[in-house]
């Protein structure tokens, strides 16, 4: 019985799968010299011996003879020379591998950083691209290069490692093979000079290759591998249990901005991974971070995003409440703070942790260990940007203080000193509101000095006789500073909120305008206008044409790297500034990804280099790109719909025209030939002499019929838009119907059929293929002497199915055989044999629409042979269970 349950259609499943990704096998070791490269090459040799296409993309043997010997017989690709600071640097050539498309490529030293100007900054990104292209990769790395273990290792060994590989690369590798060597053996190998070149080994041994270090590293490597295996087992269990997995409510929120950014990100990432929890990283921008600090925090945010965190910059004066709100909103129950963030800035203020404990007692707070290596990033404290006044307001506050003093001098005896102080305080407050923190502090200092000089006894001197005025000064100074700080923070958060609001508004308005766009040029213009308004950016929009060549829309003045545009389009990944691919480029390249396919590339150039590092701005660009992509897709489908409508209409017209023509020609021809035949039969029965004329009448009408049929057929085929009714056809059926259709035309020729029983089925239009064979056979019968055999064969050869019709006639006329297939060309001019020369032209057109080749050649022992070569397709599967039908 057929079971028509919900079994998924395997074809549909296969079609839904993306092209298979290559497999990465990592050779993982605890330290250099354990034999990773050797193991890797040995395995590559095995694969090569098994018949796999293996090439070596990059291997450094460090002069080790055993390892070098293993390169024998492997195809080693040349390295790419890159000019860097006047020197030639050899790098791994990823394009050479992509062009060569081997089954397996060996790329050693996964953590390597490429020279600037390479496609990717890191080699692991090269490897990622190779995997995406479906190429298997063997690569090697040591435990100290794993991103999350980087500081642990440098803590243990005291040697800082700059080149790291993100943990996801390690975790997603298809296979990790541990290349293990006990520390004693490794030290022996080192002493024997088998690790590194001798002079380097000397130096390295002192620092790194201490036995204690090696044991610790070995433990780390084993443990990390055990974690990986554990993770796989858990994943497997989840797959098997099929039970819905409840999202854990545990999430980690890392608060950045207190120094040790990098270390904090690593620790938080490690923590989140250990908990299998989602994690977020935020920074509260209070507006007083210097450019250096700012970019270091932004870099850390990018790093966090790379490690799988959601990142955001918050703005506001009260970090604690912002953080608490964010954590609640995103259901993150574990806050991670660095130690510095936990220390109160001033003794009277609660630390961030204490504030958080007050505001959100339900949140767990984790204080991260301080990193050892890197300097605190908060060093660059700076005055906040001045407000609307631009120039800073120093002069204005100075003048205002002097003017106030001058105005009050005559009132010295009239007003109380306390009230005079109030007036100065008012001035300080106004300065804070108007010009920000620094001018306010300046106003406070100046006011204190002026007040002291002019109004505090003894007058005209800075000396203070009454100690209580010191309190006045202190209050004035404090009010000035605090007010300035508050106002500045407020202004900063207002600016940021304003910017976000503006972004939202821009996106909203852009979406509305794009909604009415009808041309790709309009999309480019609207996108450009909005990014100009929001980020002061210039853009260039690149769209694929019918041949998938990318073309920039006109009117974009940007100088753009066309190769990078192509790369971005092909890989559907952002490239250029602020990304992993050519981060030194001057622009950001965003693929326009729509639901169905990538619709083009948006290139954004922003004058301020830091602007694109801000996650907010980057998100804005991505949102704009998404909107543009959707609009382009909509435009594409509008065009498709219009074209379909148009071609349907013209198809219908053509069809009805040809049908009418066919009907109008065939009806009188039918009457003519039918009545001629009737006449002939009657005359034959009467034995009349006129039967000869009647027979001529019949033959001529049949000839006209053939001509008309050929002409109509040619018109139908050449008008284009022939709908093929393709089907799976056994070769003997196609040949058999053609022979049957010819009736007694072939009577004069013995037929030799040679149909290979193993010949697979053809995929084609039964009627057109029959027509093709009929024409070829008719041709063979026409041009070869009566009694000569015609041979028809069918067989599969070299991935194609070949149908041959061979005769024993005079062979092809001299000249190019391809010319035979041109319409109205005949073997011989003014030949005595009838036909308009359309037959072979029809054959070729039919072959063309099937994606087949039709060729003619002379047989070496006389006669002509026409060959139809059809592409071989895998035949459809048959369900032989059907035999058990009731």
């Amino acid at each position, binding site marked *: 019985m057929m079971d028509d349950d919900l079994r998924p259609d395997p074809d549909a499943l296969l079609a839904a799968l993306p092209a298979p990704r290559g497999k990465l096998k990592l050779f993982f070791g605890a330290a250099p010299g354990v034999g990773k490269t050797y193991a890797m090459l040995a395995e590559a040799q095995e694969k090569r011996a098994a018949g796999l296409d293996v090439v070596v993309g990059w291997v450094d043997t460090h002069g080790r003879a055993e390892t070098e010997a293993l390169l024998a017989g492997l195809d080693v690709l040349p390295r790419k020379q890159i000019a860097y600071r006047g020197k030639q640097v050899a790098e791994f050539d990823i394009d050479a591998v992509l062009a060569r498309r081997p089954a397996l490529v060996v790329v050693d030293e996964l953590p390597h950083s490429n020279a600037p100007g390479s496609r990717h900054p890191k080699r692991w990104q090269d490897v990622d691209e190779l995997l995406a292209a479906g190429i298997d990769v063997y690569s090697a790395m040591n435990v100290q290069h794993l991103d999350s273990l980087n500081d642990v290792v440098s803590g243990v060994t005291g040697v800082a490692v700059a080149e790291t590989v993100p943990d996801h690369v390690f975790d997603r590798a298809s296979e990790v093979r541990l290349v293990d060597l006990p520390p004693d053996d490794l030290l022996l190998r080192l002493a024997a000079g088998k690790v590194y070149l001798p002079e380097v080994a000397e130096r390295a041994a002192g620092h790194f290759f201490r036995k204690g270090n090696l044991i610790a590293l070995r433990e780390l490597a084993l443990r990390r591998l055990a974690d990986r295996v554990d993770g796989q087992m858990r994943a497997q269990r989840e797959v098997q249990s099929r039970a819905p997995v409840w999202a854990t409510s545990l999430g980690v929120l890392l608060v950045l901005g207190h120094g040790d950014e990098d270390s904090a990100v690593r620790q938080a990432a490690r923590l989140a991974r250990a908990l299998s929890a989602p994690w977020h990283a935020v920074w509260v921008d209070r507006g007083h971070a210097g450019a250096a600090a700012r970019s270091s925090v932004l870099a850390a945010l990018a790093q966090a995003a790379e490690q799988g965190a959601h990142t955001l910059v918050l703005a506001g004066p009260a970090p604690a409440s912002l953080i608490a709100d964010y954590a609640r909103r995103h259901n993150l129950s574990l806050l991670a703070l660095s130690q510095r963030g936990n220390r109160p800035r001033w003794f009277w203020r609660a630390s961030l942790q204490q504030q958080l404990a007050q505001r959100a007692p339900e949140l767990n707070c984790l204080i991260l260990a301080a990193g050892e290596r890197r300097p605190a990033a908060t060093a660059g404290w700076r005055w906040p940007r001045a407000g609307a006044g631009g120039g800073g307001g120093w002069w204005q506050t100075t003048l205002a203080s002097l003017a106030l003093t001058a105005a009050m001098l005559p009132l010295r005896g009239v007003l109380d000193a306390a009230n005079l102080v109030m007036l100065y305080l008012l001035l300080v407050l106004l300065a804070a509101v108007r010009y920000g923190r620094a001018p306010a502090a300046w106003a406070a200092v100046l006011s204190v000095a002026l007040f002291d000089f002019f109004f505090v006894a003894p007058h005209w001197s800075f000396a203070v006789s009454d100690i209580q005025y010191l309190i006045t000064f202190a209050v004035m100074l404090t009010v000035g500073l605090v007010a300035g700080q508050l106002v500045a923070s407020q202004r900063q958060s207002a600016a940021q909120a304003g910017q976000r609001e503006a972004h939202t508004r821009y996106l909203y308005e852009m979406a509305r305008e794009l909604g009415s766009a009808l041309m790709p040029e309009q999309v480019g213009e609207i996108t450009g206008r909005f990014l100009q308004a929001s980020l002061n950016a210039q853009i260039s929009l690149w769209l694929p044409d019918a041949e998938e060549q990318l073309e920039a829309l006109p009117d974009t003045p940007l100088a753009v790297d066309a190769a990078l545009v192509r790369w971005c389009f092909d890989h559907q990944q952002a490239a250029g500034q602020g990304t992993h691919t050519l981060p030194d480029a001057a622009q950001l390249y965003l693929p326009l990804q729509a639901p169905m396919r990538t619709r083009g590339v948006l290139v954004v150039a922003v004058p301020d280099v830091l602007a694109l590092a801000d996650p907010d701005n980057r998100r804005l660009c991505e949102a704009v790109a998404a909107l543009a992509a959707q609009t382009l897709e909509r435009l594409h489908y509008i065009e498709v719909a219009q074209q379909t409508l148009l071609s349907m209409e013209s198809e219908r017209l053509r069809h009805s025209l040809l049908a009418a023509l066919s*009907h109008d020609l065939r009806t009188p021809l039918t009457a003519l030939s*039918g009545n001629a035949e009737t006449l002939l039969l009657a005359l034959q029965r009467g034995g009349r002499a006129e039967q000869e004329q009647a027979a001529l009448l019949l033959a001529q009408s049949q000839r006209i019929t053939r001509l008309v049929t050929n002409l109509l057929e040619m018109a139908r085929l050449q008008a284009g838009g022939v709908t093929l009714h393709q089907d799976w056809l056994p070769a003997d059926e196609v040949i058999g119907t053609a022979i049957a259709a010819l009736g007694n035309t072939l009577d004069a020729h013995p037929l030799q059929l040679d149909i290979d029983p193993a010949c697979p089925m053809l995929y084609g239009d039964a009627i057109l293929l029959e027509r093709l064979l009929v024409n070829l056979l008719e041709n063979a019968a026409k041009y070869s002497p009566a009694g000569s055999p015609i041979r028809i064969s069918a067989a599969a050869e070299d991935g194609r199915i070949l149908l041959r019709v061979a005769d024993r006639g005079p062979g092809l006329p001299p000249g190019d055989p391809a010319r035979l297939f041109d319409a109205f060309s005949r073997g011989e001019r003014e030949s005595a044999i009838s036909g308009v020369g359309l037959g072979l032209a029809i054959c070729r057109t039919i072959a063309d629409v099937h994606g087949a080749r039709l060729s003619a050649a002379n047989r070496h022992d006389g006669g002509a042979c026409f060959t139809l070569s059809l592409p071989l397709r895998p035949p459809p599967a048959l369900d032989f269970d059907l035999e058990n039908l009731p």
Partner: protein
Amino acid sequence: MHALTALIIEDEAAIRRFVRSALEDEGYRVFEADTVARGLIEAGTRKPDVLVLDLGLPDGDGVSLLLDLRSWSKVPVIVLSARVDEVDKIAALDAGADDYLTKPFGIGELQARVRALQRRRSGDAGEGNGSLVRLGDTVTVDLANRSVSRDGEPLHLTQLEYRLLATLLAHRGKVLTHRQLLQEVWGPGYVEHSHYLRIYMAHLRQKLEADPAQPRFLRTETGVGYRLL
């Protein structure tokens, strides 16, 4: 025994003329009609033994006439079509026509088709008696025992091969479209899988025909279907 009657529904007088004489040669009493409406009336009153129908008529489509006719009559119908498009022929066959001829056609061809249909109608399809049916001189099908033999030797047919053969035998002489055969043999879920039909037909030909590429009985109607002669 009264004379057999034939009805020609065709708007072109010149064609009617020679079709008429061809049928009269076969011994038919011939009536003519030139429109769908007239044709239906004639078919109802004359009760013809065979009907020759042109598909393009001035007041309507021959297929609609067929659909109407088939609701009350089983008269064998040969369709004449000036259209080369197989879709029209398939539509006519699916609507109940028994055979078709593409214009222009020969008189001998028309007469042979009419004879074949008449033979089937009079019940002696094949030259056998009872449950035995013969295909040519070599193949015998025993419908009662569901067995087939060739040159006296029993032939093994799979269930589906036999069902396909039996279906063709039941409509011997008639053109069966791919769709009709797939529906009858494989079931309604398979009407789009015509490669099944082609493969099983090739198997049948291998077993029954002397030269499978030039079959005598299991004829291919290219792009339309099959017919057992």
